[in-house]
């Protein structure tokens, strides 16, 4: 039995996970059209490689990765590309971004998929490239390209792979469902991932509010000697990878660092399944399991959804009652954001669509003044000082914010949850983080401009000096010629004079 440790802070919000009946996957009927954003991950957007009017098949790449931190996008079913244009995408800003729209023909015919015969015999760089080409980005909610995590060639190496099945956020049960339904695939995927990074241990971490998932994982893990299932008490946000590492190892990831700095790699169970499917079956990432839940739905549940399915169709399938619904949230109640347009599609990071009633999740109450009670500091799982950060964020004092490690904030929302003054603390931090990021980008830009300006000044000076030197050389040469008497002008004048004299003599 493995020893379990505790993290600082954390909260126990009502879970309400049973609403979506975890463990059962509802299949969705084929939608009529799909809208696929070219950027469903962190990093550079993919570049479309299809044109409007082109026929595509399921599994065909429709946008290729651009730059190292990027993943491609694949068509989830067969049909015709009907538009490549800016559409509403699931993002907190509510802004639009380039999407590829596919009208499906209903036949759902796929390209020939070709998996690896034996992944153990395949060189690791090729495995990483296949994961990348399959369009896999972290399915837990952040969407970081998985291949980047697998490719990092650090000296220390990775000793432990954690399959993070914590899923601590209320309502969401997508990972729970995957763990119950695809436990064998998760373990296979974990084995491949561990092989790719050279990890000697695999920990399948499950919170103790998911006993069925833990049991399913336990059964599946018996096939693999190095895999261990660990359960630990339920607490939000134990699922943050840094928090989970603290729970399992009593070790902290260094400030500003990543788990790989201490030899650990975290992956979501759905991501492990996607990696397995990509390498063994050759199937790119084109669908995912999403929790569709909330009291305003008559048929909530976990659904296998094609990427690009409009949220509206998902809600209709779950018998959405727009009368009782207050708003629709993409993601969970703690870290999600309100959906402004129901035509937004499901993307790789969509782990939950939540449609609560007004009484279920009330609108936030008006913000009041901070009374310096300190409850936020007690709740912070990253051991930060939320109150100090709040003051500095209001004052836009980026220097102090960085000094107080704002960038280690995981935006879990525990501080705002416990705040008796209903201060939307996380929004302050998100805003300040964005401002710091932009300021850093501007700094890089302005340094670059300075160098270019200085280089140009130097060039202009050099050119002016060269010009001046040439002029001086010409002048010196002219003077030298004048002195030595072979001045061509003087010679010409004398020739003319001589000619005149001779002409006069002839007359």
């Amino acid at each position: 039995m493995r020893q379990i440790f505790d993290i600082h802070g954390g909260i126990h919000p009502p879970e309400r996970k049973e609403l979506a009946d975890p463990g059962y996957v509802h299949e969705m009927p084929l939608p009529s059209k799909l809208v696929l954003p070219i950027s469903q991950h962190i990093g550079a957007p993919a570049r479309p490689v299809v044109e409007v009017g082109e026929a595509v098949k399921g599994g065909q790449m429709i946008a290729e990765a651009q730059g190292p931190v990027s993943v491609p996008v694949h068509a989830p079913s067969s049909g015709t590309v009907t538009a490549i244009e800016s559409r509403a995408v699931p993002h907190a800003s509510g802004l639009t971004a380039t999407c590829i729209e596919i009208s499906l023909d209903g036949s759902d015919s796929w390209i020939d998929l070709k998996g690896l015969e034996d992944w153990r015999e395949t060189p690791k760089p090729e495995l990483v490239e296949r994961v990348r080409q399959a369009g896999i980005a972290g399915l837990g909610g952040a969407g970081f390209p998985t291949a980047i995590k697998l490719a990092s060639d650090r000296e220390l190496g990775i000793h432990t792979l954690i399959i993070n099945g914590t899923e601590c956020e209320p309502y969401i049960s997508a990972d729970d469902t995957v763990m119950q339904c695809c436990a064998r695939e998760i373990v296979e995927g974990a084995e491949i991932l561990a092989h790719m990074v050279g990890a000697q241990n695999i920990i399948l971490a499950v919170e103790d509010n998911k006993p069925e998932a833990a049991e399913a994982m336990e059964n599946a893990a018996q096939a693999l000697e190095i895999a261990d299932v660990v359960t630990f008490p339920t607490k939000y946000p134990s699922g943050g990878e840094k928090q989970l590492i603290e729970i399992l190892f009593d070790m902290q990831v260094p400030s500003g660092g990543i788990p790989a700095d201490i030899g650990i790699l975290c992956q979501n169970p759905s991501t492990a399944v996607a990696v397995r499917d990509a390498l063994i079956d050759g199937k790119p990432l084109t669908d995912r399991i999403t929790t569709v839940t909330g009291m305003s739905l008559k048929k909530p549940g976990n659904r296998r959804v094609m990427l690009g399915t409009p949220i509206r169709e998902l809600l209709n399938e779950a018998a959405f009652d727009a009368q009782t619904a207050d708003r629709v949230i993409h993601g969970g109640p703690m870290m999600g954001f309100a959906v402004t347009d129901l035509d937004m599609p499901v993307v790789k990071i969509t782990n939950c669509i939540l449609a609560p009633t007004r009484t279920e999740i009330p609108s936030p109450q008006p913000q009041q003044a901070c009374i310096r009670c300190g409850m936020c500091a007690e709740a912070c799982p990253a051991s930060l000082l939320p109150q100090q950060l709040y003051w500095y964020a209001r004052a836009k004092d980026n220097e102090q914010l960085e000094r107080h490690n704002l960038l280690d904030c995981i935006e879990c929302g525990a501080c705002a949850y416990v705040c008796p003054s209903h201060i939307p603390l996380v929004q302050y931090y998100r805003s300040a983080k964005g401002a710091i990021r932009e300021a850093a980008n501007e700094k890089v830009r302005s340094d670059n401009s300075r160098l270019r300006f200085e280089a140009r000044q130097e060039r202009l000076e050099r050119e002016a000096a060269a010009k001046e030197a040439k002029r001086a050389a010409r002048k010196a040469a002219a003077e030298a010629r004048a002195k030595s008497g072979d001045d061509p002008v003087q010679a010409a004048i004398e020739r003319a004079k001589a000619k005149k004299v001779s002409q006069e003599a002839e007359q």
Partner: protein
Amino acid sequence: MIEMVLANPILLALAALVGMAIVFGALLGFAAVRFEVEGNPLSDQINTILPQTQCGQCGYPGCRPYAEAIAEGDSINKCPPGGEDTIQALANLLDVEPEPLDAEHGIEAEPTVAFIREDECIGCTKCIQACPVDAILGAAKQMHTVIIDECTGCDLCVEPCPVDCIDMIPRKGGIQHWYWPLPNEAASDNIIATDRPSENTPEQAAA
């Protein structure tokens, strides 16, 4: 002589002080020459704060000349591209009171980049010569184009263009640059119920 000095402790003290002053003065003088700092580090520090658009709106030909002028005592509120943030940072560095931006030099605006409408470009190279950071690519009688990542948005290329084919377009925008705004704090001013503005009109309140 020595007896006189010994008899007068004040003279002794004076002699000691003068001696020390000479020794330390010589030491400091030597150090000042031996460890002299090259250039003017203050103007360098100021220059790193300035936004490096090289636009000349401050009245100086570029950011470095303005940085040198500030180090000499010029006012810190002449940089519209830097705006409030730059003024604040300069005020912190120089330990002076921040002043509002001097409107004479321009107003703070969203950052832009130059964009050449390439169909209309006649290839005169005038914009290339005007660009302070060599961010325009082209040659005589060849179409020119702006390297967006290098353009500072100074708009110095707009005026020389004989066919007006250069536009200044916003640089930021779209999802990549978006971040959460600070929450609206209007509600937080109304801590006590009686602080809230009355919902009744003055007439009703009077009645």
